[in-house]
């Protein structure tokens, strides 16, 4: 059932399956075998592919997608800066490089649909319409944060936009998403649940148990595996016996697609198909979205398990660069518009930082609130 396979895909994966016991260096070499010329040719090809999709897409929507991707990129850069200044603590997992996944997928759903994801959640939260102010304040551990300063970077929540978290146990959100979809079906609502997770979560039992139940009970859930090819420092090839993740859906008789996660429109279109299947037929789908993270696993990861060159090769495939280039070639974007987007994003992020700086710390008595919804004095 897997369909299109862009060239940053799996022919390489097959070539590295024997590298399990080899050193990190050989693996870095093996993880992306394209030369500079091949990369250039690939970029040209992808623009051509994307331009086809652009024609079918409204310009306002294209600008919106571009805006959101830029917003996430700049938000994350700001978060990195604030982290290095000591204003943000703990684990902070950035989404730079993966923006097209959250933005493309979430553009395919309605505001009343549900989104749930892992700890790498800033991008999804922004794309679902959460305020940058409240997210930044949460990263700062402030009372004005979306989770009142109790969750932090990994636990963003906003009931008002049906953003159901930020979950920090790898694979933990997959059963939760299955339950959310179960509940919407139970109540005969036509809402859809999008569940995002990394490729390392596919190795968890929660993935197997959830996908089995979702197909068995025909639950309207779209499982979106963001395959950025690393779980912390462990490459896919070192952790997964069958790396063709989309194909694993056949173990459940579930529909699936392999998607180029650097093309925001490809992600959107695949998600639209899956959402349609969920909404009208109440059936789940597994999407494997191939992407890449440019930064370390978290802010504390120097990334010694891969080369600078590998990262740069992926940056050639940057989702923002790709969309803006294809839009320019189609005459849908000029310098002025791009400048305006950057300016608006800049202002939104400055507001977010100001809000976070000015927001008070949580009051000490908040330590013991929200432990129980119905507290019982003992």
């Amino acid at each position: 059932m897997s369909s299109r396979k862009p060239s940053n895909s799996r022919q390489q994966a097959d070539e590295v399956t024997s590298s399990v016991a080899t050193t990190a260096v050989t693996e870095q070499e093996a993880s992306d075998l394209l030369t500079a010329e091949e990369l250039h040719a690939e970029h040209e090809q992808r623009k051509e592919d994307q331009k086809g999709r652009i024609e079918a897409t409204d310009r306002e929507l294209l600008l919106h997608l571009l805006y959101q991707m830029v917003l996430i990129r700049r938000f994350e850069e700001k978060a990195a800066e604030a982290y290095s200044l000591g204003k943000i603590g703990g684990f902070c997992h950035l989404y730079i490089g993966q923006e097209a996944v959250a933005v493309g997928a979430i553009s395919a759903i309605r505001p009343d649909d549900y989104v749930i994801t892992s700890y790498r959640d800033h991008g999804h939260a922004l794309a679902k319409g959460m305020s940058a102010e409240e997210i930044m304040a949460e990263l700062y551990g402030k009372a004005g944060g979306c989770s009142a300063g109790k969750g932090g970077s990994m636990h963003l929540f906003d009931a008002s936009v049906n953003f159901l978290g930020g979950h920090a146990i790898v694979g933990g959100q997959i059963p939760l998403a299955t339950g959310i979809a179960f509940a919407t079906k139970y109540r005969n609502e036509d809402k859809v649940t999008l569940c995002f997770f990394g490729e390392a979560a596919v190795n968890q039992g929660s993935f197997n148990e959830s996908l089995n139940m979702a197909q068995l009970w025909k639950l309207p859930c779209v499982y979106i595996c963001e395959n950025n090819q690393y779980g912390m420092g462990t490459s896919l090839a070192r952790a997964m016996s069958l790396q063709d993740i989309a194909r694993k859906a056949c173990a459940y008789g579930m529909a699936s697609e392999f998607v180029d996660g650097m093309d925001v429109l490809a992600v959107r279109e695949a998600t639209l198909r899956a959402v349609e299947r969920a909404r009208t037929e109440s059936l789940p789908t597994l999407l494997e979205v191939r992407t890449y993270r440019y930064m370390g696993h978290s802010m504390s990861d120097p990334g010694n398990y891969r080369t600078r060159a590998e990262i740069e090769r992926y940056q050639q495939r940057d989702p923002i660069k790709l969309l803006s280039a294809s839009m320019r070639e189609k005459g849908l974007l000029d310098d002025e518009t791009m400048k305006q987007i950057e300016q608006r994003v800049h202002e939104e992020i400055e507001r977010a930082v100001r809000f976070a700086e000015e927001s008070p710390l949580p009051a000490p008595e908040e330590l013991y609130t929200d432990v129980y919804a119905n507290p019982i004095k003992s």
Partner: protein
Amino acid sequence: MPLITMREALNQALREEMRRDESVFLMGEEVGAYEGAYKVSRGLLAEFGPKRVIDTPISELGFAGLGVGAAMVGLRPVIEFMTFNFSILATDQIINSAAKMLYMSGGQFKIPIVFRGPNGSAYQVSSQHSQALESWYAHFPGLKVVMPSTPADAKGLLKSAIRDDDPVIFMEQERMYGMKGEVPEDEDFIIPLGVADIKREGTDVTIVARSLMVPVALRAAEELEKEGISCEVIDPRTIRPLDIETIVNSVKKTNRVVIAEESHPFCGVGAEISAEIIERAFDYLDAPPRRVSGADAPMPYAKNLEALAIPDVQRIVAAVREVTYTA
């Protein structure tokens, strides 16, 4: 009042709450067509249909987490573990998701869910199927832990647990499903969580017991009465939050305490109760608190060894004699 079994009392509670609230559903292994491994859900599939009485694959982590997700958006799941031994596979979703969701979302997502099933020793099923896990769950803020010891308590407490907006670990006992007791038929009969019950009044020694140990402690109290020792038997019923006031008040009266439990002693609920008593009523104690716990060994299969592993009347009697210096 009708005399019914623990199993029937639990069944009534489930039936009444499912009639009362459409958002309550029952999910677990063999709860539907098989009517429950211990027949607690007898007749429920017939009355409520497969939408609300759902047989699951053997996927404890998955269906526990599914329940938590459904609770996040407003349903009130009752998740049955065939036994709590298998809840061990679901602890990530119980402890990391259910217990913490309200807190880490800054109060936005409450989790009104009940995880229930038999806990503690069964008959000759050896180590993996015979263990009391309450101290695990009671450790975590965000969870409530309930352990009824009579059919009436089981019914009233399960109804409260289902209506409660927090995750409740509701621990039944495999050996007690057939135990009979008087149970009110009134649909509004509930017993609030967090309130201990004095199962027998007395003046000389307090015995704190829960679940299977309550009937054992009551028999011990009868034996001791013949010797002129008056025991007060307190059943906390809810382990978290613990009604320590009632226990401490009793100890202040009797000045002696024995804590009986099926579970292993180390880091157990009995240890916690003992510590609380020492902190709150040290000056009232005429003897050190004494625990009578399950063996500090996995549960054996052989009948004679199994009997040695679980506290019985004689061991509780002996402990009472120790704290009353009548041994």
